């Protein structure tokens, strides 16, 4: 009898296979943040202060794109196509299905962060992260938070055609305000307050501490709390509002 853990593993393997076979998913998840990193690196070449900011900022953005964006797209697509409904009718435990999907997102994030850390060491003069534990904690909490928010957000998106509009309406402003405020003394207070209350800026702060400044976990606990709070909120709405079927309205 296949147990839930075996089924989770099989679902994960299927998700991995599908991810690599879908060129557009692979592109948006992997290539795009790396292009930003390269582009930023070229523009900021020789300016170590700004490069120190660029690397954790892109790392934070990658966490968001590999979880929030990717899951919102995926869930809306599978819901509209009726795949979720079929899965719901099959004897696959819900925990195994979502376990496989989540593990897939975690793998993408981990690969992405590994590439960015490596690039930081090799091309951007940042060196290895000072605090691996802090890096891992922030990435993990960030993944849980943004993955849950992505699943929650999928409830709001009415159909697949409008997914790009909905996702970017959230993703781009959040990325913009968080990048703008990050280590920017001249940013207006109200923008700073908004950014601090959203989960991306605290995530970037934590990654900055872990990868660049060497400020340990204990200095960034409030940032971790903000991300955690969004995560709890996200998990609540992800489970509560989850719809396996496209509504016919």
């Amino acid at each position, binding site marked *: 009898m296949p147990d839930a853990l075996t089924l989770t593993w099989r679902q994960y393997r*299927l998700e991995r*296979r599908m991810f690599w076979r879908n060129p557009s998913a692979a592109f948006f998840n992997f290539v795009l943040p790396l292009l930003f990193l390269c582009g930023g690196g070229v523009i900021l070449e020789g300016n170590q202060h700004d490069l120190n900011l660029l690397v954790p900022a892109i790392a934070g953005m990658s966490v968001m794109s590999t979880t929030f964006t990717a899951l919102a797209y995926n869930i809306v697509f599978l819901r509209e196509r009726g*795949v979720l409904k079929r899965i719901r009718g099959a*004897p696959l435990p819900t925990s195994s299905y979502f376990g496989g999907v989540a593990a897939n997102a975690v793998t993408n994030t981990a690969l992405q962060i590994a590439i960015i850390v490596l690039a930081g060491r090799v091309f951007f003069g940042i060196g290895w992260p000072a605090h691996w534990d802090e890096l891992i904690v922030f990435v993990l909490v960030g993944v849980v938070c943004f993955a849950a928010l992505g699943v929650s957000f999928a409830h709001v998106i009415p159909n697949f055609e409008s997914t790009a509009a909905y996702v970017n309406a959230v993703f781009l402003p959040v990325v913009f305000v968080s990048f703008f405020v990050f280590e920017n003394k001249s940013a207006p207070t109200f923008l700073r307050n908004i950014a601090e209350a959203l989960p991306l800026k605290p995530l970037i702060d934590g990654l900055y501490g872990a990868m660049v400044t060497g400020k340990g976990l204990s200095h960034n606990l409030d940032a971790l709390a903000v991300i955690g709070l969004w995560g709890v909120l996200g998990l609540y709405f992800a489970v509560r509002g989850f719809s396996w079927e496209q509504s016919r309205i």
Partner: protein
Amino acid sequence: MRDDWAVNETAPAIEVHALTKRYGEYEAVRGIDITVRRGEVFGLLGPNGAGKTTTVEILEGYRQRSGGEVSVLGFDPARRSIELRRRIGIVLQSGGIYSHVTPRELLRHWAGFYPHPRSVEEVLKLAGLEDRADVRSRKLSGGQLRRLDFALALVGDPELMFLDEPTTGFDPAARHAAWETVRSLRDLGKTILLTTHYLDEAQELADRVAIVKDGRVLAIGPPRELGVGGSHYRVAYRDRHGELVEQQTDDPTRLLHELTAEALARGERVEELSVGRPTLEDVYLELTADA
């Protein structure tokens, strides 16, 4: 989790009593009673919006009923136990599938959900997908995707299969192929609950049919016996003014005797005389006609 009589092989596969389903003010199902025996092909026949799909989706565990009692293989489907889902196969009206995976990979994955799956090769063959087994599913035609639906529902070797409008949108050849598949499933001993709005499909496939309209069962029985009893013989002939007459009667013997006696007395013949039992189509049209 498991009800005691789930193991009773002689108990009906499905029992539905006084089932109701409301969506807000709208009553989609208004008191349906059906019993599906093990090993039979049972058809739910009715026009679009009759409540067929709602009923089937309650039995499959997709929807919660508003009232009534339901038992599927001895389980209450509303509890969505995984044990029940291992024993049923579902062919949805519009179930999509992952685009970047092949039928063989999908069937292998699906087979892994079940304790005693059928062999993937055998299922591919049964569904007529051997030639397309290693093509990514987004390259399959509509008919091939439908066959993949069958295959996915079948790979767990379920006792009971739900087929919701299995041939809607098929061309005639594909329909006949699908009918052959359903017959082969019945020959394997499966119980099948089929919904359709095609009369010929119900007549071809179902051992028994329930005609459903506006959320109620209007008639139930084997397709060839439905409507027998009551004034359900049609006697047609050309009368002596040359007009074509059709009469309905529950006593054709008497009517025929009178007709032929009159004609003989006049020394004439009864032209174009025919006695017909109603077809399923007649019953269906009569029952589902808007009063």
